[in-house]
């Protein structure tokens, strides 16, 4: 669960970066850098959550349904993540704030689903500790 606090930090900083700039050009740069870092952090978080799921699905401390739901999400993530990165690169090339907004929407959507799975792991860990 604690890993997901990271998203609050990253998003708060991304917003703050956008507000704290001195010129339009620098605002664009800082917005791009912040969204790029957020995309990177999203990938890192997915790797961490996946690592937990691999172990807990193997030792069957998670239900089959939870594991299969995560696998379905993981396959979707593996398809969407490269597209998100490609979109970020495009938004950089053309300095398009609309494209950058789309990247942030995609990241937010993936974060939402990933957070749900992370919380599931946290709850299951708590249950296992009570046994």
């Amino acid at each position, binding site marked *: 669960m*604690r*890993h997901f*606090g*990271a998203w*609050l*930090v*990253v998003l*708060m*900083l*991304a*917003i*703050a*970066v956008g507000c*704290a700039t*001195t*010129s339009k050009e*620098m605002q664009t*740069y*800082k917005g*791009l*850098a*912040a969204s*790029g*870092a957020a*995309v*990177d*952090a999203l*990938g*890192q*978080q*997915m*790797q*961490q959550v*996946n690592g937990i*799921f*691999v172990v807990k*699905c*193997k030792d*069957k401390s998670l*239900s*089959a*349904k939870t*594991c*299969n739901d*995560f*696998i379905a999400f*993981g*396959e979707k*993530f*593996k398809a969407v*993540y*490269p597209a998100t*990165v490609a979109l*970020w*690169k495009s938004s*950089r090339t053309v300095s398009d704030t609309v494209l950058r907004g789309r990247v942030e929407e995609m990241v937010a959507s993936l974060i939402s689903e990933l957070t749900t799975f992370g919380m599931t792991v946290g709850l299951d860990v708590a249950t296992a500790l009570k046994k």
Partner: protein
Amino acid sequence: MAIGAAALLIPMIPGVIQIVRELVDIMRSPDLTKEETAAKLDAIAVRLDARVAEIETMILPEPRVEGEE
């Protein structure tokens, strides 16, 4: 305020410390030249390419048969 909250959370999130620090640096940095800006964005792009490669080769859990708990 956001920085204060981030500072409190940073010790709890080892995997993201570097990224948060980088964002703080970006926030505090004075205006850069176009060349410096391009170099920083290039570095992020390289890191994202590496991350994509890792995600694409990431091994997901083995599927399970529901009912065989």
